[in-house]
C-alpha cells in the first residue's frame, strides 16, 4: 500500500510539523506531541483537553482553537497518547479554573487519561473527566469494554468548548459534556479496510461485493459482514440502529461523517438518504454536518451520528468556533 509519507516511524511528528506550518494560531510542540491554542491559558476559563490515537484527523488536533478544544494530545497512529502528554497539556491550559479531559471509551485511552489525571492533580490542577461512548454497534456492554467513542466526540468537544468559552465553571462544562454524550449515538460502516503506516497492508480482508456493518474508527472489523448495499439501504440500517438506542423527542444535530477514503460527493449523496430516513421516522433535524471529521486514515465508509439537542445545546452548537477543522461565526 503506497502512502505519502517518509517512514512509518515519523508520520505523527511529520504531521505535527505540517500542522504547525499551516496554523500559526496553534502552539505545536512536536517533540512532546501537544497542540495548544496560542492564547491559552485563558483567565477564568476551563481548559478542554482531548486526545487519542492519530489517524482520525482532523480529530483532535484539528479541533483546537477558540470555541472548541484548548489542547489536544495526538498519540501514535490508532494508539492512545501517554499520560505525560496529557499532563503537559493540562498544565499549559489551566488558568486555575480547572481542566476537563475528554476521553473516548477505549481501554488504552481510559487508562492513560486516568494516570494523567492523578499526576495532574498531584501538580495541583483540578481535573474533571467525560467519557465518550456513543457507538451503538457495540452491544452487551457487560461483556465488552463498553461502547466505543466515535462521532459524538465532535459534538462533545464543540458544545463543551462553547460552554467553556462562555466562562462556565468546571462542573457545568463537565455536565454539558456528559449531557451531550448521553444524547448522542453513532453507527458506522466500512467499504474497505484501513491500512496503517506501521502495518502497510489492510488490517482485514474485505472481499469485493461485501461491506462491514458496525465498524469503529481503528480499522477493527465490524460486528457483521453483508453483501454490498446501496447508499439508501445503508442509511436505513445505520439510522435505524441509532434510533433503536436513542429515541429523540427534540430535534437532532446530524453528522454524516466520512471515514477518510469515501469521496465527498458520495457523502453528500449518503446524506440525502440519511435525511430521507430521518424524515420517514419523524425525527426533526436542527443542523447537518457532512464531511470527513472523525476518520480512520484511508478507510472507505461513513458513520451517522445523531445528537439530540435542546435550545441551549443548539445555541452552543451555533456559537462561533475557529479551528482548522471546524470554523464558523468568526
Amino acid at each position, binding site marked *: 500500500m503506497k502512502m505519502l509519507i517518509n517512514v*512509518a516511524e515519523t508520520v505523527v511528528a511529520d504531521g505535527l510539523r505540517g500542522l504547525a506550518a499551516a496554523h500559526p494560531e496553534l502552539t505545536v510542540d512536536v517533540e512532546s506531541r501537544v497542540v495548544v491554542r496560542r492564547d491559552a491559558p485563558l483567565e477564568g476559563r476551563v481548559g478542554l483537553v482531548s486526545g487519542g*490515537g492519530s489517524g482520525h484527523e482532523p480529530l483532535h488536533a484539528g479541533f483546537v482553537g477558540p470555541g472548541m478544544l484548548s489542547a489536544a494530545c495526538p*498519540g*501514535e*497512529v*490508532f*494508539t*492512545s*497518547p*501517554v*499520560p*505525560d502528554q496529557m499532563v503537559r497539556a493540562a498544565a499549559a491550559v489551566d488558568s486555575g479554573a480547572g481542566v476537563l479531559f475528554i476521553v473516548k471509551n*477505549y*481501554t*488504552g485511552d481510559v*487508562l*492513560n487519561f*486516568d*494516570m494523567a489525571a492523578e499526576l495532574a492533580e498531584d501538580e495541583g490542577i483540578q481535573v474533571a473527566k467525560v467519557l465518550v461512548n456513543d457507538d451503538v*454497534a*457495540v*452491544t*452487551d456492554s457487560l*461483556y*465488552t*469494554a463498553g461502547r*466505543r467513542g466515535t462521532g459524538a466526540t465532535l459534538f462533545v468537544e464543540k458544545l463543551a468548548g462553547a460552554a467553556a468559552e462562555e466562562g462556565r465553571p468546571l462542573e457545568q462544562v463537565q455536565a454539558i459534556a456528559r449531557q451531550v454524550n448521553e444524547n448522542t449515538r453513532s453507527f458506522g460502516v466500512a467499504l474497505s479496510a484501513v491500512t*496503517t503506516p*506501521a*502495518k502497510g497492508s489492510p*488490517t*482485514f480482508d474485505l472481499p469485493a461485493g461485501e461491506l462491514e456493518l458496525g465498524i*469503529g474508527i*481503528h*480499522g*477493527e*472489523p*465490524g*460486528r457483521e459482514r453483508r453483501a454490498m448495499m446501496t447508499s439508501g439501504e445503508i442509511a436505513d440500517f445505520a439510522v435505524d440502529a441509532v434510533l433503536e438506542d436513542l429515541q429523540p423527542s427534540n430535534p437532532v444535530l446530524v453528522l454524516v461523517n466520512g471515514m477518510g477514503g469515501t469521496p465527498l460527493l458520495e457523502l453528500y449523496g449518503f446524506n440525502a438518504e440519511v435525511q430521507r430516513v430521518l424524515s420517514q421516522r419523524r425525527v426533526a433535524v436542527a443542523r447537518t454536518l457532512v464531511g470527513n471529521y472523525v476518520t480512520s486514515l484511508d478507510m472507505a465508509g461513513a458513520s451517522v451520528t445523531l445528537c439530540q439537542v435542546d435550545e441551549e445545546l443548539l445555541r452552543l452548537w451555533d456559537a462561533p468556533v475557529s479551528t482548522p477543522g471546524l470554523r464558523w461565526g468568526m
Partner: protein
Amino acid sequence: MLDAEFFCRWLTLAASWVERDADRLTALDSPIGDADHGSNLLRGFRAVIATLDEQHPDTPGAVLAVAGRRLVSTVGGASGPLYGTLLRRTGKALGDAVEVDRDELAEALRTGVDAVAGLGGATPGDKTMLDALVPAATALRTSFAAAREAAEQGALATTPMLARKGRASYVGERSIGHQDPGATSSALLVAALAETAGASGEEDTSGE
C-alpha cells in the same frame, strides 16, 4: 541470586525478541484489534533500553520501576499502562534488595499481575495478557522453565476464547479463533526471563 544486572539482561533480551516479533504481534492485533501491538512494544522497549543504558539503576526493584515508568510514558494504548504497571508494581514489591531469589520474584510478580488485573478489570478467560501472566506468576514458584511453559500455554489457550475486555471485545463472536496479541507478548516476556535465567545458570536461585 538475581541482581540488577540480571534484570537488565532480561529486558535487553526481551527487547530484542520484541524487535524480532513485532510484525507478528501487529499481525495478531489486526483481525481482532487495531494493528499496533508490535509497534507499540517496539517503541516502548527501545525507550526502556535507552533509559537503562543511561541511568544504570542498581537494584532489581529500581530496574523494573524505571522500565515500567518508561513504558507508561512511551507506549500508550492499553498495553502501555498495563505493562508499565506490571513492571512498576513488581519492582516496587521487590523493594530495595540488591539481589532477589526466584521465590521473591514470583511473589513480587504476583503483586504486579494483581495490579494489572485491578487496573484493567480483566480476569483470566477474558482473552487478555492475564491469560498468560496469571499462570506464569504461579508457575514461577516452581521454576523459570515452568513459568515459560505456563505462559506459552496460556497464550495458546486464548485462541478459542471470546474476548470480553479491550478492543477485541468489539468484534464479539468474531474474536473467537484468534490468539490474543497481549497474551502472546506476555508469553514472549516470560520466555525471555526464562532464557536469561537459563543462560545465567539461575534456574536454581529459589530460596527453598
